[in-house]
């Protein structure tokens, strides 16, 4: 279950990073970024709720990662046309995806 959650989290963070990178380069619309990032943030929030029920150290690490990812996606959703924020979030979400991938492989 933890492995599946890690994979799901990696997917959400990676998709968010791709969206944020497009927003940073002005290649997306404000509405698309707002709606799609909110959808991804909601899924990351659901993942956090599920992971928070786990009692292992890995579950705690993943819970924290899910929380950060949900918060980053939520910020992206509200970033409007602020390209600098989108650029920073693209980098953060990219790192979150890489961390989730590493954790998923270890589990």
């Amino acid at each position, binding site marked *: 279950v933890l492995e599946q959650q890690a994979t799901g989290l990696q997917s959400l963070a990676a998709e968010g990073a791709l969206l944020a990178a497009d927003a940073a380069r002005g290649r997306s*619309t404000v509405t698309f970024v707002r709606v799609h990032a909110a959808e991804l943030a909601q899924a990351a929030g659901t993942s956090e709720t599920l992971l928070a029920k786990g009692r292992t150290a890995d579950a705690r690490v993943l819970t924290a990662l899910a929380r950060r990812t949900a918060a980053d996606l939520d910020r992206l959703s509200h970033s409007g046309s602020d390209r600098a924020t989108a650029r920073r979030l693209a980098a953060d979400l990219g790192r979150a*995806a890489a961390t989730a991938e590493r954790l998923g492989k270890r589990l």
Partner: protein
Amino acid sequence: VRQFLQIALGILSAIGGFVDIGDLVFNTQAGATFGFELMWVVVIGVVGIIIYSEMCGRVAAISKRPVFDLVRERVGFSAGLGTLIASEIVNLLTCAAEVGGVAIVLQLLSGLPYRVLALLAVVALLVVSWSLPFEWLERIFGYMGLCLLVLVVAAIKTHPSWSHVAHGFVPSVPGGNRLVYFYFVVGLLGAALTPYEVYFYSSGAVEDGWGPKDLRMNKVTAVIGYGLGALLSVALMVLAAMVFLPRGIDPAYLGTPALGVEAILGKVGLILALVGILFAVGGAAIETSFAGAYNVAQFFGWQWGKRERPSKAPRFALSWIVIFVLALGIVMTGYDPVKITEYSVIFSVVALPLTFLPILLVANDPVYMGRYRNGRFSNALGVAYFILILAIAITAIPLMVITNGGTG
């Protein structure tokens, strides 16, 4: 010249109308999970829908009988009723998925609340279905659906290794989870061979009063229209394989294929993709509601037809309105349309054999078809596909359960 123009217009609307929410979901997920490995399934699926659409168009043109008329006659009342119930459930689920898809795309374009947009979408679909003639519905949704050709441009611009793409057209032993692989094989075939397309195509042919002179147009539209339409499925898979697979993205949202286009072509690509998806999915919503109404009316022998005034075919008109309203009810529960799509595609596979068997039997029957009955080649292909359809119908639900809907 006029007939050539008619054929060209038919082909264009068939291309634009080829992709529905099932194709969008399954082709994107298949590409993101298995790269180019499942390209061959698109070919098998499109050849199947060409064979059976051509057959049911020919049956409609010569015998003047639509599919559900034949279902009741050929398989009897009880089995026919079972097929009708299964088909109506699948039609309703598919219609709900398409309506939900329209609402999601409208939300991605406007930012307004999902449920408000679902309601507006159904009202708009009811109004256009009620007020516009068939040709206009077909043309508006088919031609605007051509915006999806942006998928082909985006797929080419990802610069895939074409030799790897070509290898995907040859069936191979799967590298990853085999059960998930076979789940996607079934899903992709189910998305290509959707029963509602057959019901709609056949009933439309009867409504349009097709005769022997229309058989060439039937063949050309089915072969070229669906064939070129399959290009969109291939493009979706290439795009997903090139953009999502390397990043580990599992495309679980309807906005994700549009994001793939955006990543390659930017804002203009994104808007074209969203508009294309909107009309493709909206057109499919209308087709599913009408297909459901056609089935009920034909099975019970009611007066039917889009060309008939609602006062002359009231139960038919009420049926497609009820299907839209029930679909809206499902969407309003907030259940994820992508999940509804997965269920509707897999359940539709189960209903396929009883839909396709009567077509195959009548297309072979000299009493109905005279000199227009199936030739040896058509028959061999029809039977081969029927065996394939039986196999996937038996395995569809167990695979969905075992693989947890393809998630492994």
